[in-house]
Structures are given as C-alpha cells and as structure tokens.
C-alpha cells in the first residue's frame, strides 16, 4: 500500500511495543485523509505532545476532514525509543536505522528540531507542509495548512529596496533568493557580506538573481540598520505575519538561511547558505540539486542517505578531467530520471544518485577510510553509506566517460559487486598497520 511505499514498512507499533498491520489502524489505502507524521524524540516533546493530542481530538470531533497521525521517533535505542512513543495515542513507525529516518525526514522536508509535524495528503503521499508544528501552535486555523504560493503571498507587497522605487514580487523574472536573517544574529552578520559578494558575482555573470531579505529582527530600527548592508529588497518589517509565513512555507528554522527559487518559484535549493560558502563565485549558481559536487565537509552530508558516485582524483588540477568523465554519465542519468517522472518536487526519486568529485583532502580521506578504499587515483566508487557498502569500478579500466557511464548503468541495473564495509575497528586496524609499515 501507499503507506508501505512511503515508510518502507506496513507494520506499525502501538504503545511502542505491539506490532499491528498499518491497515488496522489507518484508513484503507485509497481513502483520502491527512496523515500527520509526528517526529519525536524522548526529550522535550511533552508540550507539543499535549498540544497535538488536543488538536487531534478536536479534529476528530469536527469530522470534516480525516486526520491521522503516525509517530516517527528519532530514538535509536530501545529504551528511549519506547519512552518517546509509549504515551502517544498514535501508532508509531518501528525503530529503524538512522538512514531510513534520514530518508523519511528528507522526504518530509523536516529539518527543524523534534518535535516536528509534517502533513501528507493521502493517498497520494504529497507533502502539504512540514511546518505543522509551527502552524498548530501559531495559526491553527485553516487546517491542513496548505501553504499559499509565493506569488499569492507576496502579491502586491511592496518590496522595499535601497534604490529608487519599491518592486513587486510578480515583477521579478529570474531566480530569487529568500534570505532569512537578522541583525542580532552573529552568524547572519558574518554571512551577509559573503552573500553580497556572491550576489554581485552571480549577477555579473548575467544571471537574473534577486534577493529578498526576510527579516527576523526584533525591532524596526535593527531591521532598517541591517537592511542598509544589503543591496537588495526586503519584505517590509511591519508585515510580520508574512515574514513568519514565508519562514514556515520554506520550513526555515534557523538563520541565516538562503532559499533559492527558480523563475517558476520552485525551490532550487534551500541550502543556499552552504552553497554560497562553498561556491562564493557562484560558478554553480543556482546550485541545483542535480549537479556534480566537489566533495567537501559540507557536501559530505549529502552522502548519508543517498547513494553517491564518487570520482577520486588527486589534485584540483584534475577537476576538469574528472568532470569530463563524470558529467556525461550524470547527465544521462538525470535525463533518464526526468523522462519517467513528473516535475512535482514531491515525487523526488528516492535513492537518487549523486555525483561527487573528491580531490585529496581530509574529507576525502575520511571517506576513503570510511569506505576502506585504497590510496589509488583515479578511483571511481559508488558508496551507499546507509547500506554500508561500496563498489569500485573494475580495476584496470580507465575512468573515462564511457566506463563511468557503464559503471553507473551497472549500478542501476544492480550488476555491481558490492564490498560490505567492515566495521570501523577494522578500518582503524588497517590504518594502523599501514602507518606501521610506513615507519619501518
């Protein structure tokens, strides 16, 4: 059923212990209802537990829209897990491995702290909002909180800007960046000049790119002061509800945050801050999800829950070579994805391959160690961190566009021979041994 596809399990737990088929506690497969995925951990969730219980009961009385809740506990150990779900009146997903949780959290676009609530439209599984918690606490009306489109939300809003006359959102034609920031926030103040620089660089390259500052300032004067450091527009400070709504629409919990939107208002990336830090010149602007990443500490995180094709080379000089080998395969892959799925961002391909180039660095060393890879370059690897396995391009084959493409297609058709990653202990052992060898 849809739920099984969604969660990877058809079994749910009641009271943290009793396993029941999902069909017994949730509406049948084809039924239309709103499914809340409630993300909890063992601590700090009591308050919202109560709030959600009340809200849930109220919805049950209304009977206008069907609302069900499934609990997703972040706890990995038995006892905290049971603690976190035991007292909740909703069925819980079984304790799963963290990668699976990460996958789900990504699927539900939950980035904030637990407790968190995402709402899904069933049976399609389409994500309605991932900011259910904020909505429930702040603006509980209009459940299930379908978010307005940006054009609607910002309709007729005069975006003040330092220059001449204010502009309107509907007049912006190119890429847009929503910049969530505040003057009181030291990381924001540190990041703003970086963003200004990148903003200019991107525009110099001919991209249409407008940034809109969405302030979280605590006073009008701070807002005005801070705005002066930015060469772009801002949502007026007095529209505080709108500012909150924008944060909630894009599930922004922390600042600074930069959400980049394409001309059709689709989210290109909500990790604009990291992208700006990694790519200050804006080479990869607008930083789409589907591109070849250079392996850095920041991009490393992307490997946790998705398979990664990593091309290890030795130095940065080899980047063009690596790119030339990797890009055709990646493009072919992306093209194939585009072919058989809709454009809806919710229908994200699970386990979508990501492509990385790793030059020698501490980060790549970390990955090599993690995956038990030898010190060879060039080295083409598929790494499934969550499955604890890796596969390497047949030794002796040159890493070229052809062999890379073939390798990827082998991966996709399941023909690769995997190496199970040994435990860290063993890796350490090897390292120690080789260190010993080196010293001798």
């Amino acid at each position: 059923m849809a739920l099984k596809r969604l969660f990877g399990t058809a079994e749910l737990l009641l009271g943290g212990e009793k396993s029941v088929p999902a069909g017994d506690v949730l509406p049948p497969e084809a039924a239309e209802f709103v499914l809340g995925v409630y993300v909890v951990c063992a601590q700090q969730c009591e308050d919202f537990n109560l709030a959600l219980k009340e809200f849930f009961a109220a919805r049950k009385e209304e009977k206008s829209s069907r609302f069900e809740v499934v609990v997703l506990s972040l706890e990995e150990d038995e006892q905290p897990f049971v603690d976190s779900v035991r007292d909740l009146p909703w069925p819980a997903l079984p304790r799963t491995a963290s990668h699976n949780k990460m996958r789900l959290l990504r699927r539900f676009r939950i980035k904030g702290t637990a407790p968190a609530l995402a709402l899904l439209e069933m049976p399609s599984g389409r994500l309605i909002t991932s900011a259910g918690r904020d909505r429930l606490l702040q603006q509980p009306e209009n459940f299930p909180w379908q978010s307005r489109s940006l054009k609607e939300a910002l309709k007729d809003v005069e975006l003040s800007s330092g220059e001449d006359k204010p502009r309107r959102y509907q007049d912006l034609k190119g890429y847009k960046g929503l910049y969530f920031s505040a003057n009181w926030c030291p990381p924001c103040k540190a990041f703003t000049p970086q963003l200004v620089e990148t903003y200019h660089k991107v525009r110099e390259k001919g991209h249409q790119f407008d940034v809109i500052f969405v302030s979280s300032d605590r006073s009008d004067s701070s807002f005005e002061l801070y705005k002066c450091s930015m060469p772009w527009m801002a949502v007026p400070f007095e529209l505080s509800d709108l500012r909150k709504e924008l944060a909630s629409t894009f599930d922004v919990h922390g600042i600074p945050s930069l959400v980049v939107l394409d001309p059709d208002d689709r989210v290109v990336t909500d990790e604009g801050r990291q992208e700006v830090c990694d790519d200050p010149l804006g080479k990869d602007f607008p930083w789409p999800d589907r591109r070849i990443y250079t392996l850095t500490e920041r991009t490393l995180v992307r490997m946790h829950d998705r398979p990664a094709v990593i091309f290890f080379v030795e130095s940065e000089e080899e980047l063009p070579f690596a790119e030339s080998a990797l890009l055709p395969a990646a493009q072919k892959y992306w093209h194939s994805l585009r072919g058989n799925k809709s454009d809806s961002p919710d229908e994200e391909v699970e386990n979508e391959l990501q492509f990385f180039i790793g030059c020698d660095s501490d980060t790549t060393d970390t990955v090599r160690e993690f995956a038990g890879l030898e010190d060879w370059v060039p080295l083409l690897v598929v790494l499934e961190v969550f499955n604890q396995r890796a596969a390497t391009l047949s030794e002796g084959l040159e890493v070229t566009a052809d062999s890379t493409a073939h390798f990827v297609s082998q991966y996709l058709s399941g023909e690769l021979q995997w190496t199970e990653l040994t435990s860290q202990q063993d890796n350490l052992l090897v390292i120690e041994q080789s260190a010993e060898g080196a010293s001798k």
Partner: protein
Amino acid sequence: MEETKIIYHIDDEETPYLVKLPIPPERVTLADFKNILNRPNFKFFFKSMDDDFGVVKEEIVDDDSHLPCFNGRVVSWLVSAEGSSVSDRSDGASQCTDSAANSEPKQERQPIGIVVDTQTSNFRMAHMTHAATRTMEDSTCTETESIISSRPGGARPVRHHVEKYDKYIRYNGLQGARPNGQTGRQQRSGHGYESSSMISSELETTSCLDSEDDATSHITTTTEHSSVSRAHLRRRQRRRRHRMPPMSRTSSFSSITDSTMSLNIITVSLSMDAVNFLGISIVGQSNKGGDGGIYVGSIMKGGAVALDGRIEPGDMILQVNDINFENMSNDEAVRVLREVVQKPGPIKLVVAKCWEPNPKGYFTIPRTEPVRPIDPGAWVAHTAAIRGDFPLRPPSVSTLTSTSSSITSSMPDCEQRTIEEMHLTVRTEMPVIVRAMARPDSGLEVRDRLWLKITIPNAFIGADVVDWLNTHIDGFSDRRDARKYASQMLKAGYIRHTVNKITFSEQCYYVFGDLCSSMSTLKLHEDESVSVGPLPPPSATSTVPWGGVGGHMPYAGTFLPHPASGYAPMPFNYTNEPSVYGFEEEHPAKSTSGGSSGSDGAASLVGSAIRAPASGMPPNLPPLPSSSPHQQGAASESGSRRSRSSGSEQSGSTAAAGAASGAGSAGSGGCSGSGRQLQHVPEEVSGSRQSFRMAMGNPCEFFVDVM
C-alpha cells in the same frame, strides 16, 4: 562454421580489438593472426595458462604455434617491438618506450568491438590482475604497469609478463588476510574468471621489488599526456595525514559564524523568588568582525536557570529584562547582565538557540553513538539535555580545594592516582577516604552554599556525600551503609555540619572538618614550591594541547571554572565584588593541564580564565602563582562528571567554534596523554592574552563569567 575470436590489446589503448578468424580455435596459429593484422613491428603476447604460475601472458614468436584459447577466445597483447630499448628489464619482456609510443600513429586501427560482456573471461582476466595489484597497498612494484601503460597512443610498453603475473597472483592470494573488506573485491574482480583464487592459493608469497617503485615515479613524471594518463590507475601521493580517530574528527571550519541561530527566540522570565542566583556561566565570543555575542556556557544545578529548564548551554543571550544586547559589545553586555543580576527582583532573559552547522553523521560520529539525523540543532540541544550539562562545581574556590588540587598535580605519590586507582574500601582509613573526597576531582560537589542568607563556603550536601561514598568506596552493601559511614565521618569530625548538628542528614549542608583543613594547609606549602615548572616545548604548547581542547572548549558543559584553580572565590551568591568579567585570555599550554581528558582541559581552561577579584586583585593582574589546577587524576573522575564532559564535547562546538577553527582539527583524539608533561605552567605565561591569541592563530576571544 567454426570461428575463433581474438581479442587483442594494442599497447595501452583502452579498448581492445576483436577479430574473428574463420578457423576453429584449436587450429588457429600465430601466422593466422598475423596475416589478419599485418603488423610486423609487434611482439605478441597471449593469455596462457602456466602450470606453475597460472595465468600468464606468454610471448609467442613461432608463427606455427597454436594460440592458447579459452572458451573459444584468444586474448592477446600486442606490444611495439621497438620500445624495448628504454627501460628494458632483465626479463626482456617489459618495455617502456616513450619515443616509439608516440611515433605510432594511433588512428591506424579502429576498434572492432568493445569486449565487455561478462563472459569474456580473458578480458576480465586482465582486470583481475589489476585488481590484485590495487588491493595490495604496498605492492609498489606493480604500479609501474598501470602508469606506463597509460601513455596515450601508439606503442604499448608491455608489463604483462610471467613474472608480473606471478606477483599479482600472489597478492591475490594474500588478499584474504586483509581485514579491509577486500575479499569482496577479489570476488568481484575474479568474476568471470573461474580460477583466480585457486591459482593464487598455490603460490607462496614473496616480497616486492622495491626498485620498481622508482621506475614508477620516474615514468610518471615524464608522462606528458596527463589528461589521458589521469584515467589510469596510479597510487596517489601519500598525503601527510593527521591521523585521528576518523569518526571523531572535529570540524576544522566550524566557527560561530558557521553556526545557525534559531529563528525562534525564547523569552524566559525568572521570578528569582525561590533561588536568588541565576547559576549560569557566560561565554563571550568575538572575532574579526567584532563581538559575536554572549552565550550561556554552563548551567549550574540549583540555579534559577536550571530550575526553569528552558535555557541550555550554548544559547545566545540577546536581552536581559528590557535591555537589548544587540548593539552592545560583549563587555557591555556582561556588565549590564551583571548589574541586573545583582538587583533583586525577577529577571527576564531572551535567548536564541545556537546550532552547530554540520551534522557529520556517519562520518564523524562513532557508529556506536546513536546518530541523530535530524537537524544538528536538535541534536545539540538533545545531547545537552541528555547529558545534563551541569557544571561540576560552582566557581567558588576554597583554599582547601585549591591546595588539594595542587597536591594532585605536584605530588607523584598516591595523590596522583585517581580515586579509582586508590581502591578505597570500607576498610581504608577514614582520613584517606576523606582526603579523596576532598580532592577537587573527586566528583563531590563542593561549593559555596547559601543558607538562610549566610554563605557557607565549600559546602556539600549530605546526600551527595552518601552518593559519593557509595560510588567510590567498595564494601558498602547498600546506600544505607554508606549513609552510616557518612554519619560516622560526621561524628569523627571529618565532616562538619554548619551549625554543628551531630546527626547526619542528607538534606543538610556539610563542610570538611578541621582535620582535613590542616592537612591541606600543609599541602599548600608543598605546592607552592613545586607547582611552577618549566615551560613545555613550544610545539607541544601550540598544537597538541589546543587540539585537545579546541573542539569543545567553548561552552562545554563543564565550562566551569575549576574549583581547584586556586583563584579566589567567585561568590555564587553575588555580593558586591567587582566584575570578574574580562578574562579572555588563556594560554594553550594551560589547557593542556587537563591533558587526560578533553573536557577536563576545558574545565581548567575556564578555571584559569577566571580570575576572581574577590581577593581584591584587579582582573588583569597576573593571577595567583599557586594556581595551576592541573590534575591528571581528573580523567578518571566520577562517572557523572565524565558523562558531562562528553556531553560538552558534543554540544560545545558552537561557541567553541572559533577556537576549533584554529586548532580543533588537531583533533580531540590526540590530546590524551600528550598534555601530561605540561603540568606546570607558570601563570604569568599562561595568562597572557597575547600568547593566547598567537597560539590560537585566530583572532577569537573567549571569556567566561559567572552569575
């Protein structure tokens, strides 16, 4: 009609060629092959099975020879004959020819077909050998092959000869012993070739030829067609790696500017009725851009903030009452905060959570630790909550504890041992136990207590004593036993009730009795004579120690001024002492004192950073000379403290960040032990702000204040 497929590789061209001869495999000869190719200048090698060595590349020169055939396929390597001059090997089969290689027009031949189907065992065979070489980390000799053969175009230097194969196969045989998950690789590489492991298993191992490694590097450097050679396997240059436990790497780029502040701001109103101290330490952070705000360093048990529970270590303080810190320097903010705290009445604090930027998840968190994949902020907060980042002890410092700390650092006798090592039992003499209990690292919470508006210096709670005894002393059957023992201690005068009540109560405050005091006074003198030791070597000072602390120094939950630091008391109940704020400086060497455990380093760091002026000393004067709170024993403190320290390590990264960026990457792993020799650092040195900054290589400042 029967035909024979011949797959042949020409020099180092990537794609092999395929020709089909209309001759049955068993009858095909070299002449047949040559006729089709019409290539006079090549040597012909064929995949063949040698009884001794297994799979080899055999050179065949006799035109009438039958070609070795596997599964109807012949696999051949064509090597430009003229190449042999450059780097001829003793065996004559391996050549490396730059000139010839480049003169050979590459375009002459078009690939006939790409042989990659899985049944092409012979083709796989070649790969298998590569695989074998690759898996042997120290099999430098084989490396030559891939590099030489990587040269583009033309003549192909052949490295595939019997001797080589011999080696490869041996490596193959060796692989099984390697714990690096390569068994799987072997299987894979051997895929399609039925007998690789069988062959290799019959071979004994020999050592590699070291000299060939040189050849490798030489050839590598002369390769001009880098773009092509890049596609070939080679051993990368060994980087000088700072080995650290790969999973506990501290982030090298973290800084406060990399962290994220929570959008939600929390306003916490504290009535200050029940408790009249906040019970937090304050950490300030600044960088090039100016001050980076003030943060909650630690939260003390029993304080108003702890009772409220919402504020956590690492939270940034934005406002107190109606005074916004936004446009204030850290100094001002702390001054304001201190003023507010000293007035009676409710206090309102506005804080924002601060999150560390990057979850490293699998790559950094030991796999035994639960990975909390959601937002790092949650994780930090969560962890902090779990570990209960309470300070070990509030900052009040007594002569007693400070002296005993000096004892531990300066005396090589039993005092140096950890409490666990002392193996205390019920039969141990009571004074010994009391002494252990009085040690600053004992884990017993000793601090100034406020009782009926009277400050009781260095007091502890009865219940804590019972717990401590129960934890550290063997031989109690249960807690009640321990309680009885505490009661005896009271009767014997080792501990004293504040108003000399003689029945022991877990709810009462106690202090150490005179017996202990005199003992520690004695030790004080000893300490003064020895605690100032030579400076450690500069290198150690500037790198290793910081590494130990950098990662979690900032608002480590243990961010408490170490009671043993020997500084004058930092009254917990704010009296009218002058501001103690402003001690940004810390010398790295100082932080090494903790040596044995990261958090301990942090603790002592803070400890020394605070120079309470209660003794009337202005803050910027060099601190008391007696102080260094170095205690090795600290590493094995009570469990509770330990857990706190790990908590702090994880949650600490935010405020710490500045420091971490300078030195954090040196790794928390490296610190243990390395700091041990650095126990005695003259305070004048360690207290210098200048040297602190220099050592940090980072214009960040931290300071700590307690209120």
